[in-house]
């Protein structure tokens, strides 16, 4: 079952959900609007080699090139040891062609951190620091819970794919 907005706030107060900082106005009927942080990772090629750089989003916004992947992170720390999570984009930005998360929307029970966001815009798009970019919903589990400790759960900054690290593409 998916939690309603009132239930999200109740479980936040019970300690079963972490949203930090939490702003009541960002609560929806069945999700919470999260913000983007103030940093973006962009990828580029130098002598055929894939490189990356971290960029602070300027106050006038940062223009995303179309159909190009950028990484960022949520401004909030988001997580739960009780519920599974789904992290998606907002329809207001989807209507402007911005993909937020590319088919990997499922957040495992037990993860609690600033989430890495995968941004791809179909058209040139201006992103602003700390704007509300997406929604997180919380889902009840059925069955015994083995908490997620691995992978990316420890990271609070935008974190590149471990596959790239393993393949040594990006050093």
């Amino acid at each position, binding site marked *: *079952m*998916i*939690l*309603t*907005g*009132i*239930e*999200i706030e*109740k479980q936040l107060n019970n300690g079963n959900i972490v949203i930090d900082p939490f702003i009541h*106005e960002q609560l*929806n*009927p*069945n*999700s919470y609007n999260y*913000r983007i942080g103030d940093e973006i990772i962009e990828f580029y090629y130098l002598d055929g080699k894939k490189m990356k750089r971290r960029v602070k989003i300027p106050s006038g*916004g940062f*223009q995303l090139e*179309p*159909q190009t992947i950028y990484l960022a992170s949520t401004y909030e720390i988001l997580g739960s040891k009780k519920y599974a999570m*789904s992290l*998606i*984009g*907002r*329809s*207001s*930005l*989807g*209507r*402007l*062609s*911005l*993909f*937020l*998360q*590319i088919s990997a*929307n499922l957040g495992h029970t037990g993860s609690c951190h600033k989430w890495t966001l995968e941004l791809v*815009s*179909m*058209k*040139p*798009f*201006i992103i*602003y620091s*700390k*704007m*509300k970019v*997406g*929604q997180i*919903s919380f889902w*009840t589990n059925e069955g015994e819970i083995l908490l997620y400790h691995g992978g990316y759960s420890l990271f609070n900054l935008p974190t590149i794919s471990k596959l790239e690290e393993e393949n040594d593409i990006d050093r």
Partner: protein
Amino acid sequence: MILTGEEIKKRYREGKIVINPFIEMNITTNSYDLILGDKYLVYTTKILDPAKNNPYEIRKIPEDGLVLKKGDFALSYSKEIVGSNYYVPIIHAKSSIARLGLFIHVTADLIDIGSIGNITFQLFATMPVRIYSGMLIAQVSFWVPEGKITLYDGKYKGSSGVRPSEAYQDFRRGCK
């Protein structure tokens, strides 16, 4: 929990789910198939800025279909008015449409409880594809919520037809 097709039909008859027009044949095992409306929207500006009201045009889908070129992005909408004050709708493409490389939404698949209107589709073609008004393009599933319900009262409430982004309203309130 997700409702079965039979349960969707039952809840529709009780008035707990709105689907209008409702065609019994469009019920599937766990969802209801949605029909593409007859208009689409394209932005007429090169750079999309969520802080601004981006200019756009609404056009009619021609009788013989609309060809979306590879990389084209357009908005359109479901012919049906869809929503519920009791269940959470989630929008999906029909897999036959996805297999043609056509996205029907761009990651925003979750509808708020209490939001009842035409569903705006965010169409993105990864391959050239022809779409027709009246075709089955998407599906909606309904999910049981846990907790006390508050109904949606946001900026897209009661959407009629295709609705462009109103992200700029957030900026006007001084709250990005």
